[in-house]
């Protein structure tokens, strides 16, 4: 199959998922439990993306002090907690990663 056709179908499926429940909302009532559950979508999804980014090094779990991304991530978590500022958090994490790599030489 042609790459353009793959992208077209993939794009339509992606759009369909984004549109699905926005479109269907008027047609049925979302149960209270589901409404509650949806508040936990952002922290759950984002943590599920973040954790592997920090703990996996070339498809291996790495809990060691040589894992610079894990350490830099910890710095970013602390900065995020105290500053609640996105820009500071990113800068602190990137600077920490840079310094750790210079120090550890990874």
């Amino acid at each position, binding site marked *: 199959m042609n*790459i*353009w056709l*793959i*992208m*077209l*179908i*993939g*794009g339509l*499926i*992606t*759009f369909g*998922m*984004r*549109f*699905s*429940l*926005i*479109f*269907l*909302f008027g047609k049925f009532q*979302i149960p209270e*439990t*589901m*409404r*509650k*559950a*949806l*508040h*936990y*979508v*952002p*922290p*759950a*999804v*984002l*943590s*599920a*993306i*973040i*954790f*592997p*980014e920090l*703990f*996996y090094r070339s*498809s291996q*779990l790495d809990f060691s002090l040589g894992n610079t*991304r894990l350490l830099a*991530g910890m710095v*970013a*978590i602390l900065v*995020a907690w105290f500053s*609640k500022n*996105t820009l500071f*958090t*990113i800068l602190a*994490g*990137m600077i920490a*990663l*840079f310094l750790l*790599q210079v120090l550890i030489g990874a």
Partner: protein
Amino acid sequence: MNEARKTFWDGVRAEIPLLIGVFPFGVIYGVLALNAGLSQAASQMMSSMIFAGSAQFITAQLVSESAPAMVIILTIAVVNLRHMLYSASLAPYLKSLPIKWKVLLSYLLTDEAYAPSILQYEKEGVRPVSHWFLLGAGCALWSTWQISTAFGIFLGTSIPENWHLDFALALTFIAMVVPALKNRPMVAAAISAGVVSLFAYSLPFKLGLIFAALTGIVIGTILEGQKSLAGAR
């Protein structure tokens, strides 16, 4: 109308910190898609036809491995399943909009447009101009994504790996999650999802991500239920 325009720009402003993480991600996508053997036109157009970062990276990877078309399409569908959760989450705030608006905002509904918008809606509730916020955030992200993709295609040759620009995206997500951890159910949802994601990481097609997220959502919801029971006593 002024109120609408102001809300649109509020959305753009809320999106700006995220764009710092998105821009390098888009550049890297452009570079990788080209290296995977996609034409310049296809690499660029994927950013508007699919418009979903991780799905685009995986598509480029699978194309370079000459994976069958059905596998690629199924993978895109599975990786983007989470957008149904976003769709359900935003639906109550968009329910009274005309269908044209729903189509437009659905097209723009990515992780990075969803996050600031849901925070805003939960804080402010529904106002007649609420949808302009999501439009602003979505348009800011969309244009940045197109421009950064073009930039990556233009660079073409590989970016030095020791820049680690991709890490900026993980840091962006950290900046979004951590301030939201205000109570025990939220913390439990985040940590349980994270831990499960580590164990489920090797599952194919990013299913681990979906499984981990569902675990976190269930645990958070159960703990919140217990808390309100205890409060009622």
